[in-house]
């Protein structure tokens, strides 16, 4: 692989967990539920995915387990904020802390274990395209999954009736409820979907990306995913752009450092660059107030109690 291909390849790998988690959160937020627990759900997904892969030998069962773990975590969150009307921000933060701590506790016996590396899936013909072929079409299965997820979510949100209902619930749960849609149940489903995706994102880290389990291995990626959704103004395509931009700048700065090019930029600044670049670009492409207003779910974070 030449340099360009390697950078592209690494960019896509680095962006994939962010895409999966952020798209899951996007659905939850579109229904009006702000779940700040992504970091914790990813951590739980990571340990569940790792443990099950280790015992069963199947990374796919591992991903399923990660998905289930994320879903369970978000279900707990949903009960607190949707049924018990808890504050979403506080509950989400608590979920994050719970997930990180609980995963460390459960994961203690697994710190000594290692997994076999899962081999990539090469798509014939497409992978033979020069430069981009190897980078795009010789990847882990979850990379392809993230693209399918993106396509599915775009179709669901903007082309399907249930997607329209979901958005309506996020805009005005009262209106949706008054015309007969089960707003709470829809929010439950959206939240659990978000948790399941966070769990998959977490299991990607522990099963595919760095096949090991260590406490704190999510290393802030859950928070980045949450920020991505906001800076992408709740639009799936911008989430995709933002995630790859983040991954790309991170990988590129590593390449620059390794190459020994004459750069008089402190490496601390280079490390901050992915965050900075992502925020700046997303803020610039989303600076139009009208589109922000159009896309931001109006009732985000607000509890909803259906009148009898």
């Amino acid at each position, binding site marked *: 692989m030449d340099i360009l291909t390697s950078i592209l390849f690494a960019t896509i790998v680095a962006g994939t967990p962010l895409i999966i988690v952020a798209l899951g959160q996007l659905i939850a937020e579109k229904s009006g539920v702000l779940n700040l627990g992504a970091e914790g759900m990813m951590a739980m997904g990571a340990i569940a995915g790792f443990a099950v892969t280790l015992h069963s030998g199947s990374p796919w069962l591992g991903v399923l387990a990660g998905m289930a773990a994320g879903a369970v975590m978000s279900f707990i969150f949903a009960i607190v904020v949707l049924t018990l009307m808890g504050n979403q921000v506080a509950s989400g933060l608590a979920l994050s802390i719970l997930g990180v701590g609980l995963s460390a506790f459960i994961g203690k016996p697994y710190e000594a274990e290692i997994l076999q590396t899962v081999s990539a899936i090469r798509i014939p013909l497409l992978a033979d395209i020069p430069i981009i072929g190897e980078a795009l079409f010789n990847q882990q299965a979850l990379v392809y999954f993230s693209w399918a997820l993106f396509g599915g979510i775009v179709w669901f949100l903007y082309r399907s009736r249930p997607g329209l209902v979901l958005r309506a619930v996020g805009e005005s749960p009262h209106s949706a409820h008054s015309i007969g849609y089960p707003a709470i149940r829809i929010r439950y489903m959206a939240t659990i979907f978000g948790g399941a995706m966070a769990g998959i994102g977490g299991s990607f880290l522990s099963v595919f990306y760095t096949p*090991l389990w260590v406490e704190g291995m999510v290393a802030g990626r859950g928070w980045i995913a949450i920020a991505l959704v906001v800076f992408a103004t709740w639009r799936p395509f911008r989430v995709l752009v933002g995630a790859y931009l983040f991954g790309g700048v991170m990988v590129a700065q590593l390449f620059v450092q390794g190459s020994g090019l004459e750069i008089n930029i402190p490496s601390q600044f280079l490390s901050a660059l992915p965050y900075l670049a992502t925020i700046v670009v997303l803020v610039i492409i989303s600076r139009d107030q009208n589109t922000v207003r159009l896309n931001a779910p109006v009732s985000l974070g607000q509890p909803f109690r259906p009148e009898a």
Partner: protein
Amino acid sequence: MTLTKIISNRWLLIAFTAMAMMFGGASQAADNVGFVYVSPIGDAGWTYQHDLGRLQLEKETGVTTSYVENVAEGADAERVIREMAKRGDKVVFATSFGYMNYALKVSNTFRKTAFVHATGYKLGKNMGLVNARFYEGRYLTGVIAGEMTKSNVLGYVAAFPIPEVLQGINAFIKGARSVNPKAELRVIWVNSWYDPGKEREASLTLLSQNADVITHHTDSTAVVQAAEEKGKYAFGYHSDMSKYGPNAHLTATTHHWGDYYVKTVKEVQAGSWKPTSVWGGYKEGMIKLAPLNKAIPADLQARIREMEKQLTAGTLHPFAGPVVDQGGKTIVAAGQNMTDDQLNKMNYYLQGVVSKIPN
């Protein structure tokens, strides 16, 4: 059950201590020794090696020990250290650089307790210092790297440009160049002690830039794993990481604190302890190499064993002159060795490093 009190949560510790004080305190049969760890013990790494030392201490001296892991380098550290001193621990080992000021502060209040701080530079009236000459092991791994590389490109994933890390990088390239003048070293700073994902990306970057032997000064095993996956070589650090890359892992620079812990505690019990600054290496048994991979040719293995003897005897100094920096300036003239003071102030790369130092 061992006598070890395993309390992995600092709040629990504080609660327990408070309870013990409230109920008048059960009498302590044996002396207790407290350990403060910066990260979870895990299965490899900085804290894991300290914990091996703790276990050795328990076995050889019969004292009880307790530890608190994952203590942030901040106000929390002071709280934990203070609680340990307050409940009457004979010795408190604070095992991370960032604990320095907190440990010193607490040591000024608890004059009867012996404190030992690892890797710092502030000696107190009742606080000793301990550090290890990690660079001695790095030099040996550098020699192996210089012989094993085919591309003549070596890679290094590093956390922060502090003297301790730079000593390792420079010893590594100096060792490599002592046997292979064509060897060059690429360094990537990840600005984190611990982020397996980022460490892995940095490793893959180095490998794609032609490096075929890589190592790291960060805390996870991701670098060794990445090399294993790509069929290249790597060195572990802190601990033997061979099980994370049976083929890739050539050896590792490992730390051994146990003997020092035993000695310190025995001195404290005998009343002969004085706070000193110990910077131990091969000679003191604080630095060792993990078992050598069989991929290393027998004659090279023999040479490494010979150099280990020389390090122990003090006849081999990794930074023996001439030491020339990246820009061609001579730092240490031929025939001389770099002084400890110079080592502690290292802020440059030596010849052979092709990356630029972050400023």
